[in-house]
């Protein structure tokens, strides 16, 4: 499929004028998603007067912003042909490590640095098992998911760590605003914009596409595919570390059971946004739209007082529907 995923998909003959612009827009695979999200917004604004209020929008944005950082890492990993089930527990582990260090008198910034480094090392470890030992991403990250969760519970005795003495300038990352815009959202936007650009335009990330599209052909093009996969695996865990620290600053506590089931949400978002589980395609922009869609659905269901059990069923059905629609849209475009 020529999706927007291949950066050079844009080299189609330039269309001119307004109609050309509209056609171009309709060709983008993200357009379908944007329309679905818009439709939801319109429907919800009728269904609940509270939906379109600043507070609700802000709460929704805060909810997906931090997870969105993990989605970025997951999307890049999926493009390279990998997958990571450990994102939820690694995110929690970052919180727990930084929290424990802080409680033992380490400066919170240094503690955060160490926690992110630890997560990066976990990613590198997974990368090692995948590329050097030759195990599958699925199995390695499944094991790490369980181990990291175990470490969280071990370190905290299963209880959240209250970090009441976190200095305000640290909490600012998670709770503060610049003007009316929450810092969390600013960080999220910066991460998304930077990685979207890197992924579309830089040689290093192009090699991620080559590797995921056909690993053997990539090797036969002189690309060190193992190095690529190692790096994408590491990057995903590192971004989990960053997300964990932001969560900690936001909650003012470290929660050992945080992020259970997060991997499903994150993978679903990336896939709804066009990433392929077999590697080689995906965009940050699409994945973020996927995240937004899931998040809007969640908060709508909550607003409408739908039972939690139904929420899961609806979310799953949405995943299936979105992926099916996308599949057909792309097939038609050829």
């Amino acid at each position, binding site marked *: *499929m*020529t999706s927007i995923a*291949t*950066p*050079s*998909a*844009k*080299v*189609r*003959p330039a269309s001119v004028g307004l109609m050309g612009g509209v056609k171009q827009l309709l060709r983008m695979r993200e357009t379908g998603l944007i329309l679905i999200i818009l439709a939801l917004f319109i429907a919800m604004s009728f269904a609940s007067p509270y939906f379109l209020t600043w507070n609700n929008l802000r709460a929704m944005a805060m909810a997906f912003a931090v997870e969105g950082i993990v989605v970025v890492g997951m999307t890049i990993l999926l493009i390279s042909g990998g997958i990571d089930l450990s994102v939820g527990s690694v995110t929690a582990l970052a919180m727990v490590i930084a929290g424990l260090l802080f409680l033992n008198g380490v400066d919170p910034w240094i503690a955060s640095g160490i926690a992110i480094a630890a997560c990066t090392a976990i990613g590198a470890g997974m990368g090692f098992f995948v590329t050097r030992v030759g195990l599958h991403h699925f199995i390695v990250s499944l094991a790490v998911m369980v181990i990291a969760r175990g470490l969280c519970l071990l370190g905290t005795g299963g209880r959240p760590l209250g970090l009441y003495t976190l200095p305000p300038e640290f909490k600012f990352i998670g709770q503060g605003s610049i003007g009316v815009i929450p810092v969390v959202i600013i960080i999220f936007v910066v991460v998304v914009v930077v990685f979207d650009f890197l992924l579309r*335009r*830089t*040689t*290093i990330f*192009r*090699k991620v*596409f*080559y590797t995921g*599209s*056909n690993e*053997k*052909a*990539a*090797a*036969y*093009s*002189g*690309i*060190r595919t193992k190095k690529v996969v190692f790096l994408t695996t590491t990057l995903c865990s590192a971004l989990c570390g960053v997300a964990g620290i932001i969560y900690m600053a936001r909650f003012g506590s470290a929660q050992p059971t945080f992020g259970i089931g997060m991997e499903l949400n994150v993978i679903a978002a990336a896939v709804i946004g066009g990433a392929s589980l077999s590697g*080689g*395609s995906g965009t940050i922009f699409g994945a973020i739209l996927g995240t937004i869609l899931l998040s809007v659905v969640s908060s709508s269901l909550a607003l409408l007082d739908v039972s939690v059990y139904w929420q899961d069923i609806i979310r799953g059905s949405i995943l299936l529907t979105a992926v099916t629609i996308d599949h057909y849209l792309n097939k038609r475009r*050829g």
Partner: protein
Amino acid sequence: MSGHAENDPILKITGLTKSFGPVKALRGVDFELRRGEIHAIAGENGAGKSTLMNIIDGIHRPDGGSMLLDGKPVSITSPAMAQQLGIGFVHQEIALCPDVSVAENIFMSVTNTTRSLLMDYATLERKAGEILGQLGDIDPSVLVRTLSISQQQLVEIAKALTLDCRVLILDEPTAALTEREAQILFGIMRKLASQGISIIYISHRMVEIFQNCDRVTVLRDGQYIATKNVAETTPGEVVSAMVGRVIDNLYPAKLGDNERSDEIILDVRNLTERTRFRDISFQLRKGEILGLAGLIGAGRSEIVKGICRLEGEVTGEVRLHGQPLQIAHYGDSISEGIVYLSEDRKGDGLFLDMSIASNVAALSVEQVASRLGIIDEQRETAQAELLGSRLNLKCAHVGQPVSALSGGNQQKVAIAKMLSVNPKVIFLDEPTRGVDVGAKAEIHRILRDLARGGVGIIVISSELPELIGVCDRVLVVREGRISGEVSGDEMTEDRIMYLASIGEERALAS
């Protein structure tokens, strides 16, 4: 065949049309297949041959036109249905399951046609063994992954033969076969035809068509041009019908005596790999095109892959323009300007779901990027367009995914990818596999021009006429060693085959 006159066509197609988006792959094609005939289909890359076959096999649905099987209108909607109607299809691209055994791959299609739930494995195995035995020496119990491309192609053929079909479609089956294997296949084809089975045979090689087929249908740009009795036409006539003009010189002129140079581009000494080859020494001189001949499995591909460090643990010395080559990895080899065109374009040559432009840029994305590593899409596009037009690539635009191109045009993308880095030495493994006559001549001319311009060219080919037509000198490899060298008048198919299969070392001395 009861109830039918011997000359009634088994398959009759009229006015078939098919478009892929804006691309009109078939525009009103007529085709008629008689019982027990071997019917060739000829046409340039992208002429619509595979598309026509895919419609007969139910993979694609036609947009218009009619199809009669045994005089009755049919609409074939799936390959499984085609199999039930007795149509067997050996695809242009090999599509086997690499991780299961040869026998299981062969049985896979049988599960579609058998009516009983239980499979008669004993019979199947005997049958598979028999068919494989006829085709060559392949152990039905080994994993497909371990087979060479030509062996895999044989398995594909065996797979189709196991089905008792009435119509057998072979889409460029010999592109991946050696001369000898091809001859065996032709024998089988003739036997099947004499049993009343009709065969559709697609090939870009006129010799094969004229030696083995009864009739030939020519397509050009999706249009039906003509059907002729092979006995009443000539290769020249068929080729001009295919391309719509006269092609006079199939092979470019070779190196003249006064053009020979003593300058050595690549100097290989005592190259050895643990199991695959030993003591390989040769020199590639400036301006010449050097060929590597040998049977499949002789180690030709392994030798060149060893030189550029794509595969194997190699010892020995390689000098490029007099400088000892120190490379640890194929990426280094590319930076030194030594590149390898893979024989398996689908498996390891191309990124099928990515755009033509991205494929062409793959060897060195840095080249179309700024110093900071930011890709300039305009440069990427321009590069692909330039190389594409040099190779006469047929595509709507270079943003198209490679999977939308015909087989031969995919090969051109693979070659454009090699040329993108302005290489000093190119190893081409089966460079014209599946490429049509016109494009083939074009590729040969480009190789000659590159050689004249000082690029070292080494060609591996299982098609002996190609090696003899293109190369100035041919090294013959047998069982991992160089068993002889031929050049000038000595370069004959007999001589090369002799060295490849018997390979007297003494022959070198004479």
